[in-house]
């Protein structure tokens, strides 16, 4: 009898199989993901060592999925985040979980919008979150993966995959939507005030 999964697979083959498996179940944004192995998730959790893996950060609509640190970390791994990005992902999820944001509405509306993460403070410089030329464009790992991690949380924990997300046109910002504030050049009060 032929085993469903070969006993020996080279690393590339396993990567491809994991990606097909995740994509077929609707657990991705359509792009390849980094397989969330136990070791990678543990390494990601080390980015916020003061928080227990089972600590509940949010309950994400419409599925009302429980976003524990561990679940968030798994999605951050999939998105390609470095462990030091995890606090920003968690803070972004906390922000859009505030009642006045109306996340249930955002997750289910026919409108095309997506949450935009604007990072203020020293962490933006430390993580090299682009706030200058091309800040909405490609080429910056923190911008690309922090926003993507939040989207994967909204899809996988919140249940807002493509059949459920009722947005009529979608939006490129639904892949990733994260920038930093250029505080030194901002003529207005900085966002933390």
């Amino acid at each position, binding site marked *: 009898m032929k085993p469903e999964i070969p006993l020996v697979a080279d690393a590339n083959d396993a990567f491809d199989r994991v990606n097909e498996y995740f994509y077929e179940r609707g657990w991705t944004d359509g792009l390849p993901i980094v397989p969330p192995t136990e070791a990678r998730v543990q390494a990601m959790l080390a980015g916020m060592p003061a928080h227990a893996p089972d600590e509940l950060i949010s309950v994400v*609509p*419409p*599925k*009302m999925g429980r976003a524990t640190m561990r679940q968030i970390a798994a999605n951050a791994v999939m998105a390609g985040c470095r462990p030091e990005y995890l606090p920003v992902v968690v803070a972004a999820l906390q922000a859009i979980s505030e009642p006045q944001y109306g996340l249930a509405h955002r997750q*289910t509306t026919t409108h095309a919008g997506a949450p935009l993460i604007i990072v203020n403070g020293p962490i933006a410089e430390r993580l090299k979150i682009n706030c200058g030329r091309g800040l909405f464009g490609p080429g910056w790992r923190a911008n690309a993966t922090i926003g993507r991690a939040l989207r994967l949380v909204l899809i996988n924990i919140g*249940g*807002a995959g*493509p*059949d*459920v997300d009722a947005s009529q046109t979608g939006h490129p910002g639904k892949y990733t939507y994260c920038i930093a504030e250029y505080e030194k050049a901002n003529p207005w009060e900085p966002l933390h005030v």
Partner: protein
Amino acid sequence: VISTAFAPLAQVTAQGAGHASLPIVVVPHPVGDRDQELIRQRGEQIAAQCVRVLTTPAAELAREFAGKHYPLPAAVMPR
């Protein structure tokens, strides 16, 4: 009762509210039509289904509706 374009969303929302096997009766999409006669016809088409889900034992309905697949209409998602 919901139109076919929103049935998967209704199902996940019901799941989030703790009613994973909520009976969902679907009508063709869209329902945002100004033709009142057309809307009346759609209501009449599902009336019997509504009566059935309101009068059938919950356990029986749960077997029917738990994990039921609601395909999106081709006009909404062609692929």
